[in-house]
């Protein structure tokens, strides 16, 4: 009987990262992907000859360190890093993010000299906070509720680290982690456009509005990739050369080069259990594959509620999994255009447009959109992000034509008063096109093809429970040692030899691939391999 070292269920970014790390550590690893292509930014044709990522806006959160550590460039990956996009406001004004600090300050000074001055302080404070946070993200979380000598030592050293901080430093850190984005930004900036732009870039896809306490920490997100990723407070937009599949292709090449294997159209239906231990997986076609360790890149709920017979799980466990909050909030609209879209609100030739646009409501409107979502109302004024990757990569659309990748945030998975009927989907699509057309006159007439995917479609196609891209809401009670919940934050699960490597584990979606790398380190240690590298 052939037995692998490790099987990874699901070829999402975390699954591929875990596999790449394990393969590098010398493990014989097999990735099993249900769909025809691994999941991240899977490309597709919205119309013949028009290619774009089917589920995601782009790939803006692929950390440069991950690319470097896994030597993905060696396997053919080339990334174009662009500016962080431009926010377009209903009153016709706009505010853009630039990677070049001088240009970005000049952009800010169009609104307020004071804001331009404070930008330096803001950026410095955010980078300092990221610096402090980073070691926590690449660390496997211990369970602080468990009593052990090692744990006590960790807690005491954490206490000492807090004590060593200056009073105001600790106060500022507390503010960043507990305040609302609106309150936090008000401590730096006076202009509504500036604050809205920063909040919109950071809170896109989050389940907290800018007035919600603890939403300020999302402002760190654009600064996570501090070397190359930050672009004036928005995440730099990243476009892979060769289309959306180029990233997955590089991962697959990397895994293969290190002796691993990636199999597509291989749907895992069950975990093979012997005496309560995971021994392998069973595929939809009846095949069983055995391994010393099984990692799941599926979210917590799908992993445990779909792959296991519930009676094999410890008492109370299914209920805890059930309580893990997952709610989709983002819909995707894919558009083929027969001419380049015009945005009169942005100066012609402005490079910021390449990084995408955001139709941002004022802070109050953003907040209301989240309240509506919470009440499961059909969106009225959702936040809309749009990227036109064909402006940069001409191979994505026929000559003179373009593709537009659109994310709509604030779309509930289910509606309070009934199903998502065809009519309601059309209303959503129409709302999005109308909002885009307000900034881009004539857009409607340029549309050749268009497709809308609501959270339920995303769940059906790529298995994310409720269509939640974060694989679990990132509220403070579902982060760090509480992710997915206390006692399971170390990627190990109640089932021996079975590990969680998806973003349902620490550090969630905060660092793309982070959970995969952390889980790989745990598994490599368990397999006795020479320590997987944990990029962060």
């Amino acid at each position: 009987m052939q037995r692998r070292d490790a099987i990874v269920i699901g070829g999402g970014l975390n699954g591929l990262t875990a596999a790449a790390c394990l393969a590098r550590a010398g493990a014989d690893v097999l990735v099993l992907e249900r769909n025809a292509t691994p999941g991240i930014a899977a490309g597709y044709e919205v119309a013949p000859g028009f290619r774009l990522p089917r589920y995601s806006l782009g790939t803006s959160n692929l950390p440069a360190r991950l690319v470097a550590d896994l030597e993905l460039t060696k396997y053919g990956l080339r990334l174009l890093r662009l500016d962080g996009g431009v926010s377009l406001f209903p009153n016709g004004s706009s505010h853009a993010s630039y990677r070049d600090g001088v240009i970005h300050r000049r952009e800010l000074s169009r609104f307020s000299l004071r804001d331009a001055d404070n930008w330096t302080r803001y950026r410095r404070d955010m980078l300092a906070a990221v610096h402090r946070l980073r070691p926590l993200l690449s660390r496997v979380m211990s369970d602080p509720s468990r009593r052990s000598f090692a744990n006590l030592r960790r807690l005491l050293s954490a206490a000492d680290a807090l004590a060593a901080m200056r009073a105001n430093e600790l106060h500022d850190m507390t503010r960043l982690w507990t305040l609302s984005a609106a309150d936090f930004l008000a401590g730096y900036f006076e202009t509504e456009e500036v604050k809205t732009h920063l909040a919109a870039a950071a809170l896109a896809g989050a389940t907290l509005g800018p007035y919600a306490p603890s939403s300020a920490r999302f402002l760190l997100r654009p600064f996570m990739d501090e070397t190359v990723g930050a672009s004036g407070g928005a995440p730099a937009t990243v476009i892979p050369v060769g289309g959306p599949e180029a990233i997955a292709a590089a991962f697959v090449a990397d895994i293969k080069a290190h002796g691993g294997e990636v199999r597509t159209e291989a749907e895992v239906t069950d975990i093979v259990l012997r005496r309560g231990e995971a021994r392998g997986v069973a595929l939809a076609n009846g095949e069983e594959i055995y391994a010393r360790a099984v990692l799941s890149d599926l979210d917590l709920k799908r992993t445990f509620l779909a792959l296991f017979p519930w009676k094999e799980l410890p008492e109370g466990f299914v209920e805890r999994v059930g309580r893990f909050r997952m709610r989709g909030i983002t819909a995707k609209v894919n558009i083929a255009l027969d001419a380049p879209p015009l945005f009169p609100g942005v100066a012609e030739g402005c490079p910021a447009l390449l990084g995408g646009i955001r139709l941002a409501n004022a802070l109050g409107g953003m907040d209301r959109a989240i309240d509506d979502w919470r009440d499961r109302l059909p969106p009225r004024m959702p936040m809309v992000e749009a990227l036109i990757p064909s402006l940069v990569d001409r191979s994505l659309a026929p000559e003179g034509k373009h593709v537009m990748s659109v994310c709509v945030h604030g779309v509930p998975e289910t509606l309070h008063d009934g199903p998502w009927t065809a009519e309601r989907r059309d209303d959503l699509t129409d709302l999005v096109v109308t909002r885009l057309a307000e900034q881009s006159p004539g857009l409607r007439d340029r549309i050749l093809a268009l497709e809308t995917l609501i959270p339920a479609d995303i769940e059906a196609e790529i298995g994310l429970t409720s269509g939640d891209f974060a694989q679990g809401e990132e509220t403070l009670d579902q982060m760090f040692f509480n992710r997915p919940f206390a006692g399971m934050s170390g990627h190990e699960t109640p089932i021996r030899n079975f590990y969680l490597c998806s973003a349902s584990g620490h550090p969630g979606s905060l660092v793309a691939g982070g959970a995969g790398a952390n889980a790989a380190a745990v598994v490599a240690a368990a397999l006795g391999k020479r320590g997987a590298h944990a990029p962060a």
Partner: protein
Amino acid sequence: MLLPDRSFDAIVIGGGHNGLVAAAYLGKAGRRVLLLEASPNLGGPLATAEITPDYRVSTGAHLIDMLPRRVEKDLKLAKHGLRYAARYVPTIALNPTNGHLVLSRRKRDLELLRKKSPRDADAYLAFTKRMRSHAALLSPFLDETPFALGGEGARAAFRKIVWRSQRLNAASREALLHDLPGSIGDLLDDTFETSILKGALALEALLGTVAGPFDAGTVLRSIYRKAQRLAGIGTSMPEGGMGAFIDALAAAAMDMGVAIRTSSPVARILVEDDIAVGVETAAGEIFHAPLVLSSAHPRATMIGLLGANRIDAGLAARLSRASTRGATAKLNLALSGLPTIQGLAPAEYGARLIVAPSLADVQEAYAQSKQGLFASNPVMEVTIPSVADPTLAPPSHHVMSILIQYVPYEAAGGWADSRDRLIDRVIETLSIYAPDLKSRIIAGELLLPADLERKFGLPGGDWHHGELRADQLLMHRPVPALAQYRTPIAGLYLCGAGSHPGGGVTGMAGRLAAKAALAERRRA
């Protein structure tokens, strides 16, 4: 030469309950103390005032539940006239459809809940036990001056917290780590299924805050309030309203030799070489003392009375960023008789009545307040103090005191047109429970957050002189540099609700500030 009646050992600015408590403790320690209050009356929002002649009610807060037994005893408040019309006032969640719910761990009361949901009755016992255990961990910190961050004591203090946490068993520790960062709404949703129970517990946790039920930090706040209650005397109603409590405090202070002057607003704090030497009133009178304690809002004290030029720019900026917002209004009604609340037993009319039928109602009220609207279905805490205390109204007549949660500081379109609509809305909502309420109303008085600000110097209408949230609690309150009550100006101390442990009728900020001031003087 200094005139003897112009020179004191200590001056206390502000005659709210914290100012009075601070003055009394200083007097008790043998200091000659002068207390200066700006308005003609002591107590600020803690007062008993007439709604209309012969109908008296507590202006702001209407119950005492966090006053530490120790303060009550130290200041001999009973001797100085404090009587309670009611002790251990029960809390009842009013149900618009069927069966009100008494929130209590008593078997008899739990049966009511068990009828709705046997699961919830068990969960209620576990939940209250769990919150109590969290609160017990916090409560020692409420009884002491916060330690200074970044200082020598910080390492020992943080380590002490770790050691304390080791005493908990694994389950309690896990529960604490899970609960602490979360929202009360999520926690209640995870724990209970009965909507009336969830609504009432949410309101209890959120009353007096601007945060919504699903906001992070609301469990922390709830635990904090619970910890304050642990040391308190139990929910009580002073005979004669909250003004009587203030009268007793004032009597205690005067008994300890404190000189009290009302209608004497302080214009500035006098400083020589970064040392406080006294105060000057708006009328130009000058009083000298080596100790000045201010119970005014920290920002009003440090920037208004002292002057921003006397403190460093960083501290001034931090103070100006400190958040002080209120979303709780008060409606007081004079009634020609006791309204009939359907389904409420006669003995229960004296209870604290909660009107928050579900979490969704609480969330909706919050969402509307963010848009500058008051709720379509307001959530409220209601008492009828005259049931237990007939001195408040003419025979068989009554007064009703209503705290309305989530009333925005600024109304969309301005408050001028909205005041009456808010009153109507509140009365309509209460009429669901008491259909004859409307016919019994003789007079009413509404205090919006902005009224509280204007009348009592509570910026933003915040009852607590600064929101009770993680960045403004304990060693962060009001800002780290001022968390030990002392200020960069030697001899000047903060003693109001803006300091640890914050608002609520506890007097603890006054007590701890007096203690800190006395300790420092001894050392000097």
